[in-house]
């Protein structure tokens, strides 16, 4: 039964990673517009990408 002593911390670490991913997604604004991404995926052929300067990406989450 002492294997539990290893498994429990492991499971907690995995769960904490998922929590971290969730917090990252919420902070990034992914829960604010759940409609447009579902449309975007239909047209996304992945050929041409917007000229993304690094700073352009960083502000996505701050859009009002």
């Amino acid at each position, binding site marked *: 039964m002492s294997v539990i002593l290893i498994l429990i911390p492991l499971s907690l670490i995995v769960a904490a990673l998922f929590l971290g991913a969730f917090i990252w997604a919420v902070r990034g604004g992914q829960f604010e517009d759940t409609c447009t991404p579902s449309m975007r995926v239909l047209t996304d052929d992945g050929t041409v990408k917007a000229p993304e300067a690094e700073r*352009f990406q960083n502000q996505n989450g701050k859009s009002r």
Partner: protein
Amino acid sequence: MEATAEFSTVTGVAAKQEAMACFHCGTACVPGRHAQGGREFCCAGCQTVFELLSEAGLVRYYELGDGVRARVEAGTITEAFRFLDTPEVRSRFVDFDDGQSTRVTFHLPHIHCLACVWLLENLFRLKPGIGKSIVHFPRKQAVITFDPTVLKLSEVAALLDSLAYPPELRLADLEKPPVNPLTRRLWLQTGIAGFAFGNTMLFSLAIYLGLDSVSAPSFLKLFGVLSLLLSIPVVTVSARDYWVASWRALKLRQIPIEVPIAFGIVAIWGQSTWEVLSGTGEGYFDSLAGLLFFLNIGRIFQQKTFDRMAFDLDYRSFFPLSVIRRRAGVEERVSLVEVAVGDRLVVRHGELVAADARLVSGAGMIDYSFVTGEAEPVARGADERLHAGGRQLGGAIEIETVKAVNQGYLTDLWNQEAFRKSKDDAFGTLTNLYSRRFTWIILGVAVTAALAWMPFDVARGLKAFISVLIVACPCALALAAPFTLGSAQRVLARRRIFLRNPEVIEALARIDAVVFDKTGTLTSTGTGDVRWSGASGAELSATEAAAVRAIAAQSIHPRARRVADALAARGLAPVDVTGFQEVTGCGVEGWVDGRHLRIGSPAWVERERAAVPEVPVRGSRVVIAVDGAYRGEFAVGGEIRPETDTLLKSLAGRYELALLSGDNERERERFTTLFGGGGRLHFNQGPLHKLAFIRDLQKSGRRVLMAGDGLNDAGALRQADVGVAVTEDVASFSPASDVILQGGEVPRIGAVLDFSRRVVRVVRISFLVSTAYNVIGLAIAASGKLSPIVCAVLMPLSSVSVVVVACGLTEWVARRSGVTGSQISPTPGESMPTEAKQP
């Protein structure tokens, strides 16, 4: 002597003529005038867009989406947006600017389908200097990043305009609404509670299943400590809003639902921590985390608002951001905030008079329907006074402002008391009325149980006291109202009836007086039937219909446009008009194929010596004379919304009814019959009269619903217990209100009131269900023998069953009240993606 014929049969013939449709916008067009590569275009504007898109390799735009594209007016000029580049306007308009990249949010009302999203997010392929653009579809916004060293803000706006996505620039855009962090925080709180719930449940399950009897008690201790650690973020982060709300409420000596919940959380956490630290048990941390998980889900469900709905708009959202100012003979577009008293402004067709002003030159034909409720446009001559908010129809006029923009006739209304007080009185809600009683009862039971045990067994008395607080924690009670009202709100949204928040349902259920505005509410602008009655019963031939349409379409008068629209719906081939002339307030005339047509009021047509017979018709007459001879006429009218009589009949007797109209008395008789003599009818009502009328009704103890559409109703809508804003397009401007209703749904107000009353009954039933759970739990708790497993089962079970009862009953009630039915129209935001064609 006249036989009336449906003109549809006439125009049905015309539809068989071959009409070419514009490749871009689908408008009928003259073949060969604007053609390119075998594609026909109606105008140079549409052709330019096509060329622009095909050069950039973006023709896929035409394959995506629903095929509905706006006609592009040729000749977008960057000049028109130049005012955006003035430092003052620019700095208030952009979201972010560091000199190398600028981010700006444009509101683009024309966004409506998949193709729009695709094109706007591929803007960078059209013009160098544009970076990433992101569309927020439900809000019809595009966030565009661009390089300010390459492009000016005005050029970005002009680019959007040239693609037939004219940015809507309103005075209110200058003041940025604060970012709403609430949703984000709620998601985080729910996520953390869910995380702790899942993990503590794993530990608790092992313990419930008898882990401690098999293995060493050291596991028990470990699990207890881990659960305690996991509960700390739950109590501090997830439950934070309950601490804040309770503290605020107790300072105001009120007991909203948050107070007993906060008591419960303290009791559960305190008891559990003590058990774990003293080694006497493992606590109820799983229940605690589960409780907050469910509570926060309930709050998310309740707080989901409709993004594109704006319930708090004021006149600044109605006014444009810029006007044309004429100074020393030079016209320039300036921001409205720069306009001072005494400035000369040029107002073109369709534009707003932005401030109270004096007409300097030009023929004023002002449509005040949105501001005062007058149905007919009024003619104004030189030196006459114009009120802010009127819309000029016809040629351009020059005006001189006599009052500042923020001091006009319209803005007086916003200085009224009704606009100063906040309408969200959360303490009066059903849940909180119930919770007040509930809290006292619970405290009573807890204290009695404690006192009863104390003389014999102090420890047991204390345990009974805490157990009561734990079990009675009104989780199910707190969930009943959010889920019932939240699903009721969604049911109504499917019928394009949008509520400011779910609590409006409770207010609707208490209504006992209903007040209507006339223009735009009970009558509709632009949907009544248009009937043709020809001289000696003769129908209009296809050529005649095409000629009438061509001439009427050039008029600015709403009635002529209605005739043109009715004929255009039949798909007539366009014809050329020469010698077109419009006489303000009278009608239009012109030549088509050598024949002279005159379309207008009976008196004016008679002046051409065409004898116009007296015809008893309902509605307004649009008379047509061809080559000086009476040809027939259109009866434009029956503008009262269909089923209005049924609505009024169903409301009569049960509600006090009234009509408040800004229009004159000419339709009094018609409405007296409609209201069945039961209601009070008032005409020539100004905005302040309406507000005062509502206030008086409320003073006599009535709870009033006001339905109106214009800015003149804004005060009354605000003062009423429930203000219903009626609008033809839910995405366009409507005054501040509690409910936004699509025009066609006005006859359903009666059904909505019935539905609301039933929904409140559902809330009460849900309360009963959750009370039943509490009574069972309390019986066990008061005896001082609460086993953790009972607690662990009862808590989630009661929550889930209350949620199921609440949502299920609401759907059932909706079907019974006739609010849902075969004609369910999904909300625009949700429907679009599924309707969009797959590429």
